[in-house]
């Protein structure tokens, strides 16, 4: 109980951010037309690659072999996620440009 209380106190800011982000997320995304569901999903997928910052911090301060290996792996994977995700989303959205009806 005590540890729970101290956890809630110590992480108050982060918990606030999480709870409010959930509302923000539902608010921002709930009105997306189904035409855009696939690009939205791959775009969101690219954003989840934000873990790349964690990868940078890890490799940035890596000292042991395990940290180097796992950290590099994490960073590489996250970069795949970010770069691939944004590029593929852009490719799809390019097709949704307004077209003149023939």
């Amino acid at each position: 109980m005590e540890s729970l209380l101290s956890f809630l106190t110590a992480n108050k800011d982060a918990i606030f951010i999480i709870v409010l982000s959930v509302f923000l997320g539902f608010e921002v995304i709930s009105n997306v037309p189904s035409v855009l569901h696939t690009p939205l999903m791959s775009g969101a997928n690219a954003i989840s690659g934000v873990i790349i910052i964690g990868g940078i911090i890890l490799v940035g301060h890596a000292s042991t072999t395990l940290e180097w290996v796992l950290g590099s792996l994490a960073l590489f994977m996250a970069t795949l996620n970010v770069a691939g995700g944004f590029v593929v989303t852009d490719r799809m959205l390019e097709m949704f440009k307004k077209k003149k009806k023939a």
Partner: protein
Amino acid sequence: MILLNTMMPGQVVLEYSYLLSAIMFVIGLKLQSHPETARKGNLWAATGMILPMITTLLLNRDEAGEAIGLMNVFAILLIIAAGAVVGSIMARKVKMTAMPQMVSFFNATGGAASAAVALIEYNKNPDQALLVGLLGLVVGSIAFSGSMIAYGKLDGKVGDIFSKVMTYVNLFFMAVIVALILVVLLAGLDAQTRTYLVYGLLVISLVYGVSFVMPIGGADMPVVISLLNSLTGIAAAMAGFIYQNEAMILGGILVGAAGTILTLQMCKAMNRSLINVIVGAFGGGGVSNAQAQGSIKEITLSDAAVLLSYSQKVVIIPGYGLAVAQAQHIAHELDNLLGSKGVDVRYAIHPVAGRMPGHMNVLLAEADVPYEQLVEMDNINPDMPNVDVAIVVGANDVVNPAAYDDPGSPIYGMPIINAHLAKNIIIMKRGMGKGYAGIENFLFFNDKTRMLFGDAKSTMQKLVSEIKTI
């Protein structure tokens, strides 16, 4: 404290760059909710990603106040360059039909990265095993192995295992994972034992990801992909919690929310609960007692061509069969041709048409069909009685009137496109096979229905040349 003071300006810039990045993510996602602005939105989000990468690289300091060393900076740039090149090549080469696989694959890499980060952070400070760290590890691992299986399935490399046993196996894994987390956090074990348990947790999570996705397949894929997408976001947010990094938390949670919304929408579109999809019991319940009435009637190509040419309103209802046959381009040729004859042609898109949410829209957009012509189910249904011809291409369950009429049918209550209300119905189909749900489609026996058997692509090609001769 003195140390802290000297590095204040840089830290402030760094912290606020995270806030800026979070704002860009929100703006980016907001803009992505309209076709006109979506591409710009993606650019906003991408910028929101690059900014904190640069500031972190330049300004991040560890607890001792050490900046990132030159060697490490070099290594980071090298790895990022490699990842960026490989990632963009994959993204440029992928076919639009293979988009669900690609998204699953990128989702897997994101999950793996989160799990790896959480694992190293645990190793750095084994004494501060935090709930969020463990959650990041567990959720990231499940998202990774689950997405890899989903990727394999969509790519046809992995089959489905349908078995009632899997339900119990999965419940067992879930219970073990929860129990292990509680033990690691609360039992006050020594560091050695705890580390073993954490690695055990990693292994079980990876196995659970596999066994969780294995039994789910076919028409349920859109639900699974959305769900896994949401998990990756949550894993990233948990890792962000470890670093108290606002950009990571907000970015991750936004993705989690987006994935959750899509998951629920897909479930709703199939009239099934999320639990039902995960547990994987399709149908099972009631026994269908309705028998198909009437007979199957075919139509010749020339009759179909005449019927279409002299219609006023035509609606094309595409299903995954259209994508499999790569018939989206010829479908657009057909609608152009009819359009030039003054026929009003629209496409009716069911929310679960394709292998991921919105997949059919992407395929048709690739074939240059303007998105204004793609109409969502709820918007087209009221107009269906005024439609002269509904052409069903490679779709089955999403136009099955059993969803209205037959309480015993597994798809009873599922929202469908009301093709049966159109004045004429043409169904393009390979043969008399049943849809994914394995149920009889009464629409085929409807008096207004005419069948055009054959491969969707070649049938439509013949239809197009037939119409040209009129």
